[in-house]
């Protein structure tokens, strides 16, 4: 199918010999928003990291493909250049590297030959920063260095908008945000959603009030135990996860 951006089939993943993901399959098409919900420790962040290629995770069985291409042999930066993006739960700080420089370099790495000129880049950047209510002074600060939780998440979304991925993995992007920031972040996700596949990882329903998922998956102990529509999120909010446990 031409619209398929992510297809995970029978995935098993271990860290240091401990199995975290225990047989998971999932397909995401262009234009679809999928939410994965579950308690802490269910393996949600592991899923996002392993799709992006974090070297600490070992795939012991199953496959992950992006636009029909097996990711097994692809390095992290190649995945990024191919159009995959991960918004980190805890973005690393890079002291001494200014946000402005970092963004320009990332855009030229990921977008390669089709990267905008310095002038167009600046225009694009300013537009996105306005929409995210980010002050220009951000650009001369060091990447995530001394940032508040909310500032980090805004910078993640700013990167997502600039890199314009066809698959966006958003790991707990809603945590630590006040209601205004949450709305801004949601607007960002909604703006790329029609042209991309989105995977939202969250354990609250909050974000889903602003970003309407097409599918909600419940993850417990390394497996997807239930898949439903947006209404499932509300049900989880009311009933918790216990009723889904085997």
């Amino acid at each position, binding site marked *: 199918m031409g619209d398929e951006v992510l297809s995970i089939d029978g995935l098993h993943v271990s860290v240091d010999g401990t199995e975290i993901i225990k047989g998971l399959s999932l397909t995401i098409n262009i234009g679809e928003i999928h939410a994965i919900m579950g308690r802490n420790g269910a393996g949600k962040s592991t899923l996002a990291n392993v799709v992006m290629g974090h070297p600490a995770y070992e795939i012991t069985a199953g496959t992950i493909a992006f636009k029909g291409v097996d990711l097994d042999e692809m390095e992290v930066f190649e995945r990024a250049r191919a159009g995959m993006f991960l918004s980190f739960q805890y973005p*690393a700080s890079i002291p001494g590297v200014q946000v402005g420089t970092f963004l320009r370099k990332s855009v030229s790495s990921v977008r390669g030959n089709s990267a905008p000129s310095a002038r167009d880049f600046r225009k694009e950047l300013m537009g996105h920063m306005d929409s995210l209510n980010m002050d220009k002074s951000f650009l001369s600060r060091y990447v995530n260095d001394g940032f508040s939780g909310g500032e980090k998440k805004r910078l993640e979304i700013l990167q997502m908008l600039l890199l314009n991925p066809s698959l966006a993995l958003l790991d707990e992007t809603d945590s630590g945000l006040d209601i205004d920031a949450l709305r801004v972040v949601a607007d960002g996700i909604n703006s790329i959603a029609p042209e991309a596949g989105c995977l939202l990882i969250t354990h609250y329903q909050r974000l889903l009030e602003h970003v309407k998922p097409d599918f909600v998956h419940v993850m417990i102990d390394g497996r997807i135990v239930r898949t439903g529509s947006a209404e499932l999120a509300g049900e989880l909010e009311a009933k918790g996860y216990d009723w889904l446990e085997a």
Partner: protein
Amino acid sequence: MSGDTARDAVGDYQYGFHDPENATIRFDKGLSEQVVRDISELKNEPEWMTEIRIKAYRRFIEMPMPTWGNCDMLNQIDFDAVTYFLRSSKGTENDWDDVPDDIKNTFERLGIPEAEQKWLGGVTAQYESEAVYHSIREDLEEQGVLFLDMDSGLREYPEIVKKYFATVVPASDNKFSALNTAVWSGGSFIYVPKGVHVAMPVQAYFRINAKNMGQFERTLIIADEGSSINYVEGCTAPTYSTESLHSAVVELIAMDGAKIRYSTVQNWSANVYNLVTKRGVAYADATIEWVDGNIGSKLTMKYPSVLLKGEGSHAEVISVAYAGKGQHQDAGAKVHHLAPNTTSNILSKSISKNGGRSSYRGMLQVTPKAHGCRSKVVCDALMLDSESQSDTYPTMEVGNSSADLEHEASVSKVSNDQLFYLMSRGHSEAEAMGMIVNGFFEPFTRELPMEYAVELNRLLELEMEGAIG
């Protein structure tokens, strides 16, 4: 060692090209009192300078090798295998067109004439033992600023040179300052008159081209009361399988209220011993700043120092060191608070990679008379792998209890989280490492003139490419 093995040993070094040697005068290898006399005679020096040289030569012979630092590497130096004087050009030219073509080519490949046009107040280019090109902007000359190569300085202003030469770094300071005083050649001589501010940096560029060459430049900068100057130097050499020796002495004198900034980006090839003595004296309310980058060389031992002699004077030493395969950067800073209310800041950052070793060696002294002094020392080391080494040897001698001293030190590694984060933004591992390293050095880089900063960043990015994979 063949050329290829040399390249394996020192890595991919972009300035590693060499041009054919066209020496007009080349001394036999090895050192003797006669060699010292011959250098002095060849330069038609006044007798007092010949005397200084001879005394220094005798000191050099008497003094033992240092018994600290990397003795194994130091003891590999074969003083008899070094050429102590080599003249490649008939004189110092003021017009770029008159510089011999082969030498001109070298400096053009290094971008010197271009830089001069764009952003320098003056430039001196030294090739082997002597300056081959020299210029200064007219407006500076009109204000009475003297900027010459040291040989011309001695010839044209002997009274100034005699008054200050070897007063800050005496010949007997250490074995290598004795050697330099005996055989010095080239270097810069600068005098800035009272109240004159030299806004554009002046630059010297040092290039060793010959094999087994010793370069012993001598620099003397005097900033008279209330004046200021910003001096920048760069150094490169070709990649040979045999070693060269660079042993310079730099003396700075900042009179009352004057300010001298001295910036160095040393990028010698990895077969050069770089054993340099740099010291400045600051009188009342004067400032001396050393901005010191050590990227190349096999072994560097260099501890830019400041004697805070006048009340209210200030020292600033910002240094970075990068030690790759087979390299030892033994660098640091020394500040002596000799007068009341003097202040100093020392920031040292080092990176070790591929088994390289970087050492911070520092001295902070506060004498009993020096009331109300403040000093802050920060040393940060970044290790890029587990086979590399970093160590610190800080010494503090505090004779006055009113001193306010801070010392911070850290050793860190590049985290996998940082690499993964940057790679997830489309950067290869080498690119990611380059960004982290450039970021680590940023507090140093931002102090450099733009062209040097860009060059340094590019250099470090190249360094990160070789060894990953």
